[in-house]
């Protein structure tokens, strides 16, 4: 508590579903807790008894091996009992309701539910009926808070004093369908970064209006951000460059002419990355389509911190499981899930 003169902040969110309800001091608490967890991960035996006997259930309605394994590893490092359930969203539409599933899992003893779902907002429905804690592992296009937090942690490791103020961060790709981009908007505008979102106009729909709404510093604790289809403008003098995955369905949906054209106009290749600052880092939330949104040589270059993101992901998720598990009944009296 109160380490290094920082203001003592208590974690009192019962759930973590989105970063819109999390304050900057709380994000800093998560960052400090992640530091501690990285210390654990540096030990010969990477396991602490913090969540010994606590039951963490993974409920994944969308295939995602890497996110699931990251959460499972984090939970096991804290000595939690882990149960994993993978199910297709299609079973939901076949009459197996999320509500039934959550009630069943609770009856089976689930305490912390890590949830991945293809429908935006689904974790709020889960949190509404679940007696324990919900940790969002990504919902629809809406939010992926642990990804944004591991991105933030990784950026801070590479920036002087871990300070993002005025640092230019460019996120390039399918912004419209990206929960990673949405969560990063909340965290990076809170961090004071100079955030730029870039992609083809069809995959940026609505974000101009969003950026305009925030342009006057309207949202307390959050700065403005920029939206552009000009990749050079987005990358020029950037401190951080992040590519997002482009999915093939976007062509069938008539949003992109071809992946080839996307790669030619928006792909992160060495020439484009050279527009960024010499010390800029290159990030990707994975899984990558090498040769589409990111060139293979960029993905493995010295600037790429993509494997660091994966490693930090375990530490951030350990920190969040630890913080959520420490929230007791007293913090559960508020009527709203926010």
């Amino acid at each position, binding site marked *: 508590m109160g380490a290094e003169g920082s203001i003592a902040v208590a974690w009192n969110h019962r759930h973590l579903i989105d970063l819109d309800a999390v304050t900057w001091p709380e994000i800093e608490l998560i960052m400090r807790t992640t530091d501690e967890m990285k210390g654990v991960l540096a030990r010969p035996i990477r396991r602490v008894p913090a969540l010994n006997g606590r039951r963490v259930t993974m409920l994944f309605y969308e295939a995602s091996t890497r996110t699931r394994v990251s959460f499972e590893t984090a939970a096991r490092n804290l000595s939690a009992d882990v149960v994993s359930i993978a199910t297709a969203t299609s079973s939901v539409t076949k009459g197996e*309701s999320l*509500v039934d599933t959550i009630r069943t899992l609770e009856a089976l003893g689930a305490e912390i539910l890590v949830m991945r779902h293809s429908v*935006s*907002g689904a974790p709020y429905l889960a949190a509404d009926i679940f007696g324990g804690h919900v940790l969002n592992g990504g919902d629809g*296009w*809406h939010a992926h808070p642990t990804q944004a937090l591991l991105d933030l942690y990784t950026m801070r490791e590479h920036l002087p004093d871990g300070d993002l103020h005025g640092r230019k961060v460019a996120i390039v790709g399918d912004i419209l369908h990206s929960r990673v981009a949405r969560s990063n908007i909340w965290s990076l505008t809170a961090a004071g970064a100079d955030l730029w979102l870039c992609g083809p106009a069809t995959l940026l729909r609505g974000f101009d209006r969003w950026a305009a709404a925030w342009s006057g510093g*309207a949202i307390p604790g959050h700065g403005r951000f920029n939206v552009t289809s000009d990749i050079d403008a987005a990358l020029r003098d950037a401190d951080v460059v992040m590519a997002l995955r482009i999915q093939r369905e976007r062509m069938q949906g008539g949003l992109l002419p071809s992946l080839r054209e996307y790669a030619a106009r928006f792909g992160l290749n060495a020439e484009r990355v050279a527009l960024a600052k010499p010390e800029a880092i290159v990030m990707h939330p994975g899984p990558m389509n090498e040769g589409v949104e990111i060139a293979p040589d960029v993905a493995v270059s010295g600037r790429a911190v993509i494997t660091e993101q994966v490693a930090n992901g375990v530490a951030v998720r350990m920190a969040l499981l630890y913080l959520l598990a420490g929230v007791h009944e007293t913090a559960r009296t508020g009527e*709203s899930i926010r």
Partner: protein
Amino acid sequence: MSPKPDARRVGARSGGRQVHLGPEVGQVVGRFELEGAWLVDPVSGREGPGEIVVTDGLLESVVWLKGTEAAGVDDKGVVVAPGFFDLHAHFREPGFEDAETIASGSAAAAHGGYTSVALMPNTSPALDEPGVMERIRSAARAGGSPLEILAFGAVSAGRAGDQLSAMGELADAGVLGFSDDGAPVRTPKLLRSALLYAGMLGLPVVDHAEDSELTAGAEAHEGYVASVMGLAGWPAAAEVNAVSRDLAVLEDALRDEPRARLHLAHVSTAAALALVRRAKAAGLPVTCDVTPHHLALADEWIAGARRWSWEALGADGTSRDPWADGALHATPYNTALRVNPPLRTPADAAACLAALLDGTADAVATDHAPHTVVDKEVEFGLAANGISGIETALGVLLALVDAGRLPLARALAALTVGPAGVVASWPRLATTPAARRRGLTEGAPADLVVFDRADRWRVTPEALRSKGKNSPLLGRDLSGRVLLTVAGGRLAYEDREADSTES
């Protein structure tokens, strides 16, 4: 039935508000007087203090009070108005009786002050042939409610958007017109045929104006809120495009069939209302309605805001930012807010109100769409569209009245003479009972609602008579508790709790 010897009385806000009439729902009301109430007669346009006497189901006398007699009576207390007419409701029978039945829907409507309701044909089977109309009629009779239950037939067989339904037989069976509601009339070609054939019969086509190509997979109005919440956008352009199509096809059809009529249901965007305004000015025989929820709620409710739409307007008439205002208090993604057309921006809601005030919108219709818990207690993107709204329509409009944005008489006109005027504009129906003028007419069967603006009631699952508890207003207090609804001289609803609260 013999007259009640003990005439019952309603006094405005005096605490003497007692309306227990004795008869059960469906029975002819005996004799009762209402004294010192605020009377609103949308036909004559008159409102003021007055009293009414009902004898054996007939509205025997309407007396307007003056001078000292009228002292202390104002429009903030007990109000008497003609019974309401809903042009657009879903009672789900036949086929979806777990969501609503004619009986439960009628009870809900009466609780909302309605005495006439027009049902939409998206039942199972669809109302695309006269046998289904007969089923609806017999269910209405069996239910014992005195409400006037009317219905629209389907435009297309099975509402599939291919062939015309049995339009002529349906007209003979007494439908009000034709609609594939829930979905738009699928193609402009089908719409043209429907307008011509229905026009020949003297009946309208009622379209749910939506360009389904633009809304495939859509979850919420396309705009700032949907962007932030990661919901697939439902663009205003989808409604504008469909209204534009409908008006162009109507204009074309009129050349061949001057009796072609078009009614646009639940218009929700400023741009589409502007098109209707222009078409009306050009003399096209088009009418439209707006819903209570599109008037009073906005897309920001999905994010957790719970302020009325007019409270979310900036000084310049643009929509405010609920995140910036710290206005988000409720759990987001409440599926009771998922509705088609979607809740729009506060600026669109203001345009709906402006349309009501300038006559572009002819009526308020509820689009009462009850759903089961099973269809609503799911992920937002998988939830059924619809709001259970026939019991809250009056309270929502009174919120607009209380806020000084809508005159009381205009609000009540939109629930009475407004919809009646729409029906009267359809040639086959112009002189039928469905198109009757809804006023406080002496000598006619009593058809009226009595409500108390000073008495608030809480919207709860228990308070709602509808089987559909899918109201985004649950937990909220609304003014204008309905005390009494009389339909065609028979008791439709009586607030018996009001009795028990009187000591």
